[in-house]
């Protein structure tokens, strides 16, 4: 018997909620080793208030067929981060062209977003979904490289001052190595936080080498909430430059206290090749952090030595559906932990958000697993951390969102150097041949 779910959507953003029924199904796909960026540029002036998500009209983004999108971390606007994007009408299939028109922006401060401000960056992945075609590699013709070159305003902060610089965007994309490592985000201050509150929390500084991109690693790692994005307190740097991450934007789903040394979250750091092949690897040492988790209804902390690991992603991945297992009334800006139909996730997999809102009332910003588990272990996903951008009623059996599940090969950090050297040598050889 077919299991059906409800997909609800706006007929136009903020208009009427309509819905269709669709089969609950897992889809597999192949992802290309080439990724593009798309800049998100505000189309209207809008006042934003700290912690209150707003829907912002953006300069239309056109995506070619066979693409999916996800977030590129590191806050791109001084007043906050994009947490998801909208397309109007019935959510399109991956195989179709898409036009993105709005975004949900989560402000970390009060201020004004101006028309022309660059408010975020999307990663565009090229995928193949066919049963046979996904087993074969990509050829150059499978990847439609389209880039609008536009003027935009980069808005950033530095010691409390806000700067607005005009730039001309020219991002053609990069080659992924599929090689990455995890960076723990460890609180460097004590903070009291309330449910629904959002804070920029100082973290132990992270130095990112040139030619790295950062993405969130899903699954809540702190009992009080999750990291929405990370912050670099200076003019945003290019991918090919070194970066320093000093703060994390944390949103709380419960009241409580964050302590110095708490593990707030984890980010993926991927090595990539852009035009500039300044590829560099840095040795990492194990760190100590406190894991704050819930046990028998209480929050407990456990000190842990975090060994450094590297991993390599496989090109075949799948989508898993996050389907509500309860009815819940939600109101804009009030984050909720929503029970979902349990998902069995096998060992050696990581989860990464799939953008484009799949629920009209908001977006899934993280997911909740049963107990404390490592990437190398099997897990059961039982809940979603849902950030509503509109008031509404989420029904049981309604789609909340979708996550990408990637298989990975996890190895001690020392192996990273071998993988990295193999890849950089080959990329440099190709680069020397064609340039």
């Amino acid at each position, binding site marked *: 018997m077919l299991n059906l779910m409800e997909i609800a959507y706006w007929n136009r953003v903020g208009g009427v909620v309509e819905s269709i029924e669709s089969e609950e199904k897992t889809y597999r796909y192949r992802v290309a080793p080439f990724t593009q960026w798309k800049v998100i540029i505000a189309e209207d002036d809008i006042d934003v208030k700290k912690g209150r998500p707003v829907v912002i009209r953006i300069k239309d983004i056109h995506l070619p067929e066979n693409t999916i999108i996800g977030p590129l971390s590191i806050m791109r606007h001084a007043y906050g981060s994009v947490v998801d994007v909208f397309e109007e009408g019935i959510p399109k299939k991956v195989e179709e062209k898409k036009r993105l028109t709005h975004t949900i922006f989560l402000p970390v401060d009060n201020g004004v977003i101006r028309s022309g401000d660059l408010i975020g960056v999307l990663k565009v992945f090229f995928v193949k979904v066919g049963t046979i075609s996904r087993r074969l590699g990509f050829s*150059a013709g499978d990847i*439609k490289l389209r880039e609008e070159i536009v003027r935009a305003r980069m808005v950033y902060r530095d010691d409390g001052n806000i700067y607005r610089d005009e730039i001309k965007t020219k991002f053609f994309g990069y080659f992924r190595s599929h090689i990455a490592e995890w960076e723990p985000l460890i609180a460097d201050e004590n903070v009291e936080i309330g449910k629904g509150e959002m804070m920029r929390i100082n973290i132990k500084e992270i130095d990112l080498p040139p030619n790295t991109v950062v993405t969130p690693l899903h699954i809540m790692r702190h009992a009080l909430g999750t990291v929405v994005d990370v912050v670099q307190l200076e003019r945003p740097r290019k991918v090919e430059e070194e970066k320093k991450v000093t703060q994390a934007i944390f949103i709380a789903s419960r009241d409580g206290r964050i302590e110095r040394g708490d593990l707030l979250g984890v980010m993926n750091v991927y090595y990539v090749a852009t035009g500039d092949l300044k590829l560099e690897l840095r040795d990492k040492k194990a760190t100590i952090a406190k894991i704050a988790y819930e046990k028998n209804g209480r929050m407990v902390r456990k000190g842990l030595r975090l060994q450094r690991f590297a991993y390599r992603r496989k*090109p075949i991945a799948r989508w898993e559906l996050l389907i509500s297992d309860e009815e819940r009334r939600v109101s804009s800006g009030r984050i909720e932990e929503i029970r979902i139909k349990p998902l069995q996730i096998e060992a050696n997999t990581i989860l990464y958000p799939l953008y484009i809102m799949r629920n009209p009332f908001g977006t899934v910003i993280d997911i909740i697993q049963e107990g404390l588990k490592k990437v190398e272990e099997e897990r059961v996903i039982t809940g979603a951390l849902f950030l509503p951008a509109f008031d509404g009623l989420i029904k049981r059996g309604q789609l909340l969102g979708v996550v990408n599940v990637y298989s990975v090969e996890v190895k001690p950090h020392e192996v990273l150097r071998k993988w990295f050297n193999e890849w950089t040598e080959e990329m440099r050889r190709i680069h020397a041949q*064609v340039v």
Partner: protein
Amino acid sequence: MPRWFNMLSLLILNPEFAESGIAALLKLHEFGVRDVYVICLHERGQGLPALSEKGETYSLAEKKIWAIRNAEKIIDDVEKSGLNVTGLSISFGNAIEELLHVAESFSPEVIVAVVKNVDEILKGVYNLDVATMIIKQKDIGDLFEKTIYVHAAGCEWGFEKFAVNKIYGLGVVEPTLPPESSSRIMEERKKVLKYELNRIRDLLRERNIEFENEVVTGSISDVAKIAEEKEATLVIVSRGHGINRIGRVAKILEKPLMIV
């Protein structure tokens, strides 16, 4: 010379022909073209997909890095010429699909296609109703110095945006069978064409543009021969001739061709 406000142009080219494409854009700059969306066409990359993960990464990298480098160079050259690049597509073997996507999304007012495969581009642009210049050669010379316009009866002339000083207007009447009716129909067609060409002449006169014109009997392919005789630098053809007849001209014409 009239300037039309900030026209968007779509430049389609094989990278090795970038020079003549940019030269054509610079000429069009005088008519108000300022923004350019560039489509770079590549024939490489149509091979079989790689079977191994490494093979996939490295063969893609070889083709894409090369294509991106070429595109960046073209963008730099276009920008150095004082034009503003608004976007870029890199297409591997599917020119028409990319052309239609960009045309639908950005509504260019003029298309410049510097390509080897004229037939393919013609199929893509014919129904777009956008002035399209097709260039096959590297040296385009002084593009608008000696323009020939080939009119089709009953059609809008549509080249006014690119009209300067002196234009030679041409009407071509192809013989039809049988001879009795042919001569009567031909005479009628000639009259209509002459009348319409004279009307264009009168309208252009108001803009101080000289429009000498004649109607000839022959094949549409004769346009190429007449263009040689008159030492034309550009041949403008009305869409009203139909894709097949325009294709015949495009195939043999060595000069830049503009379809309006």
